[in-house]
């Protein structure tokens, strides 16, 4: 079997909580608390979860935009977990990030042309006289007119700005793209355009995506596999169809039943999940989901369930399905 493009083992990202007066650490927020995943080249892995589940931190840590606390990240067969910045730089070309809000991630004082030329200049991969061509190539790839290069980000609509964000991520021909809520800030009619664009580019350029979103409908349209996160851990990971139509973890079930259906009168919200997501600074003991879980047993408050592969191919961290 071919070597996976990305292997993540026992990844943890903890942020210190500092005391107000002396700035001494008094605890930590376990934003990502031990996740394992593998990604084949050409695959789209969705990471879903509610706010505070750690999905964005996980995505950023995998690209080392945030430093991991523990664990390992192996990209193209090379352990990059502790790679110094100088050696990380050439690898950055091959792994890129797309942000939710392109307005805050595009420099408002640079023309789109300069924004898109920047990656080539920073990585010194194109001659100055080639930059114009490269930029127009990128613009046409994401469906923007060539004269977009002379304009500034604020002159574009949200959807067009996200196209600029995508073009910038594609500039250096990456293999892996982590897209964090790339369509969440967009209007419904524009969302479909951007999703289709991301799908098309994936096929044309042979890309691999980690697609982070809280919107399960969106995820179901673009992902091959889906990981569900709750309080820093992956509670279930399965191929798309299995996850959506035969979920095993009670949290996945609750999440799916909470999604309002666009068919009127269908699927009333009977199985409403009570309570809020607990704070990742002070997660519940045992299985972090047990205080909200309709199937919680005494064991769930004491023992943390380990991710287990069950018949059917999915990985579930739940005592109902564990050893």
């Amino acid at each position, binding site marked *: 079997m071919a070597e996976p493009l990305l292997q993540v083992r026992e990844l943890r990202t903890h942020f210190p909580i500092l005391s107000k007066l002396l700035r001494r650490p008094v605890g930590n927020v376990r934003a990502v608390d031990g996740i394992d995943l593998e990604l084949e080249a050409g695959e789209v892995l969705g990471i879903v979860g*509610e*706010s505070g589940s750690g999905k964005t931190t996980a995505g950023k840590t995998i690209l080392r935009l945030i430093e991991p606390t523990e664990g390992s990240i192996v990209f193209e067969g090379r352990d990059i977990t502790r790679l110094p910045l100088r050696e990380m730089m050439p690898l950055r070309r091959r792994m890129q990030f797309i942000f939710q809000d392109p307005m805050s991630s595009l420099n408002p004082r640079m023309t789109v042309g300069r924004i898109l030329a920047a990656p080539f200049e920073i990585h010194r991969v194109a001659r100055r006289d080639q930059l114009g061509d490269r930029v127009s190539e990128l613009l046409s790839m994401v469906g923007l007119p060539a004269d977009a290069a002379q304009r500034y980000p604020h002159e574009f*609509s*949200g*959807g*067009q700005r996200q196209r600029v964000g995508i073009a910038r991520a594609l500039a250096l021909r990456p293999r892996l793209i982590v897209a964090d809520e790339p369509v969440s800030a967009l*209007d*419904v*009619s*524009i*969302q*479909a*355009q951007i*999703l*289709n664009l991301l*799908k*098309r580019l994936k096929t044309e350029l042979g890309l691999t995506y980690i697609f982070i979103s*809280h*919107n*399960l*409908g*969106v995820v*179901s*349209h673009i992902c091959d596999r889906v990981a569900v996160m709750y309080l820093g851990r992956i509670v279930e990971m399965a191929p798309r*169809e299995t996850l*959506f*139509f035969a979920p095993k973890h009670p949290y996945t079930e*609750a*999440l*799916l*039943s*909470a*999604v*309002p*259906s*666009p*068919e*009127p*009168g269908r699927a*009333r*919200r009977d199985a*409403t*999940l*009570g309570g*809020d*997501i607990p704070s990742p600074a002070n997660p519940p003991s045992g299985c972090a989901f047990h205080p909200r879980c309709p199937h919680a047993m005494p064991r769930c408050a004491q023992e943390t369930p380990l991710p287990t592969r069950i018949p059917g191919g999915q990985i579930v961290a739940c005592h109902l399905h564990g050893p």
Partner: protein
Amino acid sequence: MTDPHQAATKLDPVARKAPDSSAVPALSVENLRVRFRLPGGAFNAVDGVSFSLHQGETLGLVGESGSGKTVTSLALMRLLECPPAEISSGAVMFDGRDLLWLPERTISELRGLQISMVFQEPMTSLNPLLTVGRQIDEVLIRHLGLSARAARARTRELLGVVGIPGPDQAANAYPHQFSGGMRQRVMIAIAVACHPSVLIADEPTTALDVTIQAQILALLERLQREMGTAILLITHDLSVIAQTAHRVAVMYAGRIVETGPVGALFSAPLHPYTQGLLRSIPRIVRTPEPELPEIPGVVPDLGDFPAGCAFAPRCAFADEACRRDKPELLPAGARREVACWKPRHG
């Protein structure tokens, strides 16, 4: 000071119910136009919007950014800053009176008492310096004339009604001590404190996670059942409308382009825009299509609405007539209306 017992009967949902709920709408908006005068020029954000809302009914007002849905709701509550805004025509009939012509004092008496609002971001509408209890007490004291003690008792009751655990402690807590979902419950408690006959909820669940959204929508539904409130639910999310509203009005570029009962409108949309919107929702299905149907082009900028039908530049069926003349919102079958020269059928 009012006797608390008397106030309690005043709050009784049955006593507040209108004798006849069928004929007269709880709220009706007629030909509302809102213009903004800005240094760059004047433009219509709301361009002749009419709808009615009945007791016990939820009307979903759906639209994308810039469609004018929020401006509509702020205008009818008289919460728009004028200038730059200017209500250039229209009427908002409530309880036999036109809200647009009421003196400021009367309208602010009405707000919170008979018509109230829930906004998207509760953190910005709650006072961070006052306890949650104080903020609910205030409404009860001001509008219903309760004594401080009676108000607090009712506040605790209300916090319980909206599903906040430990109402006694909660009343003494500050907004930042609550999660987003709990803050929205507090906002709802404030909004329903005086049993308003109309509740305007502007993107009430947009900032919330899906599991919390489901809780809040269920809460609004329950309160409506118990109190017969008419709800105007403003959202960009068609799925929220599908699960919560009885009727829906779709807005595009400052106008209503289609209205109808939720079931009929969702299963057979008449306006190509409604049709496009519904088709472009990514649904959870076993085998998704390789491409989602998209609506080409971009949402028009405020102040740059095309002449003729505003949707024409993005519409696959548009012709010269569509680009030249604005279609009026006209009846189209049972309880339905559409503003389109070439409505779709099936």
